[in-house]
Every structure is written in C-alpha cells, then in structure tokens.
C-alpha cells in the first residue's frame, strides 16, 4: 500500500517537474490563484440559489428558486428585451469603436493627432451622468432637442423619446464605444502593412482592402469587445431602470434586483442570475469556437515591419466627418448639457435657455464642500491605480497560460475569468462580502481592492486573450528552441509586444474602478470613503445638478490627468 502511494507520488512529482521544465508551472500556479479568487464568490452566489430561505433563516437546500424562475410568465419577454438591448448596444458600440480605432490608427484622416484620445473621453464620465444628459436631451415633453425642434423648426409633437428601447440602445451603445476602441486599436497599430500592400499591388482599393483584409484579421479582438459589451448590456441596470421603466420596458436583470430589493431573497436573485450565467457561457462557447484556429488571426509574426498610415484619398474627408460627428454627438453635446445643468438653479427647458443669465455656482460649491469628496477621490485614485496594474498583469498571465503553454485543460480559465461579468454587480458583491466576512480583510480597503480585481478581471483577460492570439507562435517557438524559460518569453517577447493593449486595458480598468459604485457600495467600510459613491449619492437623492457638478469636476480631473500623461510625460496610454 505504502509502495503504491510512493509510486503514485513519484509519478505526480514527475508530472510537476515536466510542467516546470516546460516552463508553465509559475503561470499556471498564478492563474489558479487568480481563478480561485474569482470562483469563490461565484460558487457562493450559486450555492445561495439553492435555498428559499430569506436572509437570516435556513431551511435546507432546494430547487424551488429555479422552479419559480422557469415558471415566471415574464421570463421570456424580459429575456427578449434584454437580448435586443444588449445585442443592439454592443453592436453599435463595438462597430463604432472599431471604426474609430481603424480611422485613427491606419488612415491619413486630417487632424487625428488632436483627437486621438477623444474616443476615450466618454468613459471618463460616470454612466449615470450620461443617462441624465440624454434624458434631458431626449425627454418627449421636457427634452431639449424636442423643444428646440418644436420651437424653432415648427415640428409638431416630439420626435425623440428618451423612454424607449431605441433610446436605451443609443445611450448604452455610446457607452460601449470606448471598449471597442481600446480593444481594436492595438490590433490595427500592430498590423503588418505588407498584407495590405499586397492587396494594393493587386489593384484593390483602400476601402475594399480594409473590408477584405484589415477588418477580418481584427475579428478576435472585435469579438472580444463585442462579447464583453454584450455581457455588460445583459447585466446593465441604470439605463433600463431610468429609461426603460417609465415606458414599461422591463429587462431581465430587473428581476434580479427586485428579488434582492423587494423580496430580500438573495436565493431567488441568484437563481435569476444563473440564467445570465448560462447565457454568458453560451456566448463564450460561441466566441471560443469562432477563434479556435487562432493562428489564422496572427498578424504579428517574426518578420520585421513598420506600421504606417494608408492614404485613403478623398475618403479621408468622410472619415473626418465620422470622427467629428462622434465627437459632437457622443461627447460635446451631453457634456455641455451637464455643464449647463450644473450651473443653473434647476432644469426645465425655459430655465435652460436663459443660461448664462441665470448662472449659479452653488452646486459646485456644495460638491467641493462635501465631507467625503476629496478623501473619497484620493482613496479611489490610489486603489484604482493599484488594482488596474495587478488586474492587467494577471489577465495577461492567464491568457499566456491558456494560449502559450501546452497544459491540458487551461481553457477552463477562459470561462472562470469571464464569469464575474455574468453576474449583476449587487449579486457579485454579496458573494464577495460572504468571502471576506470573518477574515481580517473585511471592512478594509483591501477587501474593496480584491472585489474590484474580481469585477474587472474579465476585461483584463478578454483584452489580453484578444491580443495574444494576434501574436504568432513562431516568436515564442523561436525562444523555446533557444532554451528560454517562460519568464524570458513572457517578459521579453509577449509583454513588450502587448504594450499598447496593456496600456489600453490599464487605462480602461483604472477609469472603470475609479468610478465604480456597484462593487464599492457593499465592500466599502465605515470610515473609508470611496469617491464615486458620493456622486451616486447625489443622484440617488435626486440632486441631479449637484451630481452633474460632481461629474464635471471628476471629468475635468481625469481629462487633465490623461492629457498630462499623454502629452507632457509622453505616456503611451493607447496609441
């Protein structure tokens, strides 16, 4: 018996040594740690779906919650609404983001140096601010655009309706643009131009080349962004609540929130969430199937080349128009609305049109005097930078383990790493609270930091996965042949090539984390203010003008920080 155990241990040890020799042990180990941290709250949340007891009581395990979910007569209509909303906004956002990335990275569009950071500015604006701005623009009776059309163009009745599915898709679609842009920009920047040059030599026009060569090669990164935006849409709550509810449009995630906030039944809430998890897995299966022959999409090979812009002729004026329109509609107009709203006593169309005669600074004064605004901003700034760095690095390590080591079964990380995105934030926060409760981490900034890591890991992983498949294996293989270990390959080949996408992912996660409300609200501790919660509080209590003032201050700080980093310190954030 003892001999058998010793023999088995020897076999296992040999297996470990083999993995180590292959250079995969460390990344594999790191991935397992990250995966465990992610899977723990997810499993806790799922286990809660198997109890019908209200919080504070225990009645044993049961499948009753699932019976309630699957016999809910509104399940299918709500799911349908969610699918339309998520698919519509993800498509608009990713296509527009990708188009902007292509225009700015690969074409000779005029003035692009001035606007290269511009597609990113919308993510600096907290999501609720965007909703406020668009509601005030598109509301049927009180909206600025409808009133302008009626008053100055003699249009009869409202043209736009903020409270409709189309408006919901539009607003959330614009919020999806930066992610599409950030995911696709590195791909277009690291594109081997010889592929396009061959097409030109064969007589192809620039647009045809883009459609038949450039865009197809960006499919993995495009799908990565599309999948992420789609999953974000599925669990998005603010836009459906603010713009959908008044029109009677109910999305699936509102069932989760009702179960948590009306029923106080996390079991039922998590059972509803499981439907979202199942949908997410289906989407991920689709993604992995599409990108299974990753070598097809490899654009970065061992051959040297210089990236250069393509002369697209007269089309450059069209692309300039596209960029300018996005700049105007996606950024300038909503931002101006917010600025004016923050500077007037209250919003209605009449008062809005009197600006600047009725300008007041009281809202800014009040925000600056808010007891937790400055400390909250400092806390969120420090934590966001730290978490962004760790999350991005771990995302790359996990993607490296999946796509660059030859360890069996590592594709499971693809699912584990993306799972947090399938859960509505309140549900995920609940799982995280249970994980940290009883540990010394609970009620500290560390718990909040780890919570943010779990929440944003999917972005880091999807970003790294989408980019890593664009690097041809021949580069790694050349290093392996010369006896390099994983750390040499990782730090000297993979990481430097991934630099643009690393910068993009860091930037995205930093911005998302610094304005996070959903995870922060349950994990923040008494005495540790977190900046974005302050803004949300203004919104929650109905002080939109103060919320707008806070949003404007936040936005200006971030724009200055990003611009200084880019133009003064020459930090490559994305380009």
């Amino acid at each position, binding site marked *: 018996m003892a001999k058998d155990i010793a023999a088995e241990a020897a076999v296992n040890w040999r297996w470990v040594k083999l993995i180590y020799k292959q250079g995969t042990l460390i990344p594999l180990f790191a991935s397992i740690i990250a995966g465990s941290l992610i899977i723990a709250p997810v499993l806790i949340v799922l286990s809660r779906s198997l109890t019908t007891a*209200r*919080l*504070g*009581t225990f009645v044993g395990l049961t499948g009753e919650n699932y019976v309630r979910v699957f016999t809910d007569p*509104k399940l299918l209509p709500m799911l349908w609404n969610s699918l339309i909303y998520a698919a519509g906004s993800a498509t608009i956002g990713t296509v527009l983001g990708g188009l902007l990335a292509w225009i700015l990275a690969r074409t000779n569009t005029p003035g692009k140096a001035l606007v290269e950071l511009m597609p990113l500015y919308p993510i600096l604006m907290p999501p609720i601010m965007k909703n406020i701005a668009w*509601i*005030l623009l598109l*509301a*049927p*009776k*009180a*909206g600025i655009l409808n009133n302008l059309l009626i008053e100055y163009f003699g249009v009869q009745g409202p043209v736009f309706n903020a409270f409709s599915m189309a408006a919901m898709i539009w607003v959330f679609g614009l919020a999806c643009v930066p992610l599409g842009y950030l995911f696709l920009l590195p791909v277009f920047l690291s594109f081997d131009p010889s592929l396009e040059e061959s097409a030109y030599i064969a007589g192809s026009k620039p647009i045809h080349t883009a459609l038949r060569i450039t865009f197809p090669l960006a499919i993995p990164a495009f799908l990565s962004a599309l999948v992420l935006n789609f999953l974000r849409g599925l669990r998005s709550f603010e836009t459906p*609540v*603010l713009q959908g*509810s*008044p*029109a*009677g449009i109910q999305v699936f995630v*509102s069932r989760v*929130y*009702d179960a*948590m*906030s*009306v*029923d*106080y*039944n*996390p079991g039922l809430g998590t059972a509803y969430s499981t439907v979202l998890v199942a949908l997410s897995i289906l989407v991920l299966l689709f993604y992995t199937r599409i990108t299974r022959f990753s070598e097809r999409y490899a654009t970065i090979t061992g051959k040297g080349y210089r990236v250069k812009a393509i002369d697209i002729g007269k089309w450059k004026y069209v692309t300039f128009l596209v960029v300018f329109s996005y700049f105007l509609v996606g950024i300038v107009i909503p931002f101006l609305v917010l600025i004016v709203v923050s500077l007037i*006593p*209250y*919003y*209605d*169309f*009449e008062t809005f049109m009197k600006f600047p005669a009725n300008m007041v600074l009281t809202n800014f004064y009040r925000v600056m005097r*808010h*007891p*937790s605004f400055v400390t909250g901003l400092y806390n969120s700034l420090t934590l966001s930078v730290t978490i962004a760095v760790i999350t991005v690095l771990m995302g790359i390590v996990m993607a490296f383990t999946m796509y660059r080591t030859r360890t069996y079964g590592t594709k499971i990380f693809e699912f584990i790493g993306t799972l947090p995105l399938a859960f509505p934030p*309140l549900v995920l926060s*609940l799982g995280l*609270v*249970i994980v940290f*409760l*009883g540990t010394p981490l*609970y*009620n500290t900034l560390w718990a909040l930091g780890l919570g943010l890591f779990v929440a944003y890991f999917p972005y880091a992983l999807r970003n790294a996965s989408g980019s890593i498949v664009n690097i041809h294996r021949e580069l790694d293989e050349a290093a392996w042949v010369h006896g390099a270990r994983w750390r040499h390959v990782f730090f000297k080949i993979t990481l430097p090539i991934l630099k643009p996408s690393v910068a993009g992912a860091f930037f995205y996660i930093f911005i998302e984390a610094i304005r996070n409300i959903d995870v922060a*609200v*349950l994990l*923040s*501790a*008494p*005495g540790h*203010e977190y900046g974005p*919660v*302050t803004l949300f*509080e203004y*919104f*929650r*209590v*109905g002080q*939109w003008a103060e919320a707008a003032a806070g949003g404007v201050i936040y936005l200006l700080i971030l724009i200055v920080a990003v611009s200084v980093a880019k133009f003064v310190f020459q930090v490559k954030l994305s380009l």
Partner: protein
Amino acid sequence: MKRNSKLNLKGDTDMAKRTSTASAVLVLSLVAFGGAALAASAEDDSFNKVSAGLYEKAKQEGSVIIYSVWDVEHLVKITEAFSKRFPGIKTSYWQGRNPEIVTRVVIEFQANNPSVDAILSDNAPPVIRAAGAIMPYETVQKNLLILHDPTMPVVSLQIQTLSYNTKKLKAADAPKTWEDVANAKYKGMVALDDPMRAGPLSSMLAGLKGLWKDDARWTKFVQGLKALNVPLHKSTSAMMRLLVAGEYAIGMPTLLHDTLEEKETGSPIDYAKTAPPIVFPRYAGIYAKAPHPNAAKLLTEWLISIEGQRTLDAVGRESSRKGFRSKASIDTAFPKGTRSIPVEDKLFLEDPKKWLDTNVKPIWGE
C-alpha cells in the same frame, strides 16, 4: 333706562360669560400647555437622566458605528453634533441603499460579526428585525413621538406629499386629495412611483388601506391609478426631477423635504395641502450584536431629544417629535388640524413583498 340696565345687565352678563369662558379656555390652555410643557420637561428630564447613565458606559465603549440610508452630508453634520455633545465617543458611518443595508447587516449577523451599532433608515430596520438582527430597545421619550415602535425608536419621519408642477397645472386644477389623482382627467399628466417595488407609493397604499378600512374604496382607487396607464418610476428622485423639468404635471407621491427644498430653490413645484400627508417611520434600530450598544442607545435618545431634532431639522430631515415646529414638520407645512396617515401595517413593514403580492398584485398585475 331700566331696559337699558337690563340690556346692560344682559350685556354685562354676556360679557362676564364670555370673559369667564375665555378665562376658562385660557386657564385650560395654560394647563394644557403647562401640562404638555411639564410632560416635555419630564421627558427632557428622563432624557437627561438616561443620557447621563448611557454616556458613562458609552465613553468606555469609545465609539459608535452607523449604517444608514441618509445622505452623507447629513450624517456628517449629525455625527459631528453628537460628538460635540458627547466628547470621547468616536463616530463612523457607512452609507448604502435599503437593499444593501439589509443584505449587509443580515449577512454580518449570520456570520456573528459585531460590525455595526445603529441602523438609521426607513424600510431596512423592520426587515432586519424580522431576521432577528435587531436588539429591542424602547426609548424613554416614547410619549413625545408622533409614531412609536416599542422595539425601534422612531427618530424622524418620511412625509409624503402630492406635488405638481405649477407651470403645467394651476393650483385650482390640481388634485386636492390622493383619490383625485385616479380621475381620468389627469391621464397623460401623472407619473407614479412603481407600486410593486416596495417604495413610497406602495407604503402610501398600505397607509390608505389601513386608514380607510374599506376594501372596495381602496380597490377602486388602485384600479383608477392602473387605468391611467402612466409612466412608472423605480426611482422617486428621478421622477421628482422630471416633474420639476415639466415632463410630468403631477408626481405621486413625493417627499415633503424634497418638495420644500425645490420650492426654496425656485423650482416650479407646489403640493396639495389638502391631501393628508402619509407618514412612514425612520427608525434607529440597534443591531443585535452591536459592539457598542450603550453608545447606540445614547445616539438614539439624543436624536429624539430637542437638540437632536434641531440637528435633524437643520439638515432638512423631518421631526418625529410631537409639537416640534420646523419647516418640514406637519404642523408647519399643512393647515392646522391636518391629520397625518401613518403606515402601520405590520406585514407591509416586515415583508413588503408578501403584502404587495397579497394586496396590490391581484389588481395591478406585474
């Protein structure tokens, strides 16, 4: 002359009667006022007495941790005033929405975690109490409260009003009572809080059901609202903003302190003073495993005291104390003699979802 004398005599008698009546009224008023004053004074004495004892113990505990749904700006001012009054007790707070407070407190309770002392909120404490996570505590100032709960002191009130946009609707055309809103003539003008989300409209419906005790009348009212087929909001604050913006002419219900604040800033908002206010308690619940229970009790008693109520009034929160006149009190904001409608339904308070499923869902649907 005689006649005159008689008349005078009668007049004198009348005068004497009037004088004696007036005197009696005055005496009675003085007695009543004096009685109330004495009662208030007695309650103040009891506060002074209890606070002295609690303060000694609270100082040894050294701090008090609050979870609350209230604005951070308000919490800061309240805790600063408390710390100034009772030096040596450190205060800290965490702010969240009701579902988050319930989730957090009950999970902490299950994990035996001594994380919080006092929970200041409206909807959350009864649900937490139903889960066994509230330490029963009856305030010594109970006789002074408009609403009293023997296990959780009511330190403030949520007062609901029927507001309208003055640019969209003249005062004469505005609804005068809650029931008026269900009139078909207001179709297309009204926005409602979602009655199925356990928010202000559902608590209003619970209050009216308890007041009317007439199921047919109540059902007709809910059916009337449903027939309006108007926008439903899951956020009362968003509904209020759109009411101010002119998207809607009438919002039901809105909160008194919001309405008054809007009026102060010059927004085109007013409210129907003839619609009796619905009042919902804002509790200070003491956590069953509070690490600093005496500090929590002291905070609770102080919040109900005149000094505490003044602090609440200064940040715009409604008083829960009888006879305490402030800009957001029922006595000031409504005509004399207005009777408020309390929300006292036990099932609604402890399991709003069950109450909604039983009473509202059969009429409203989902």
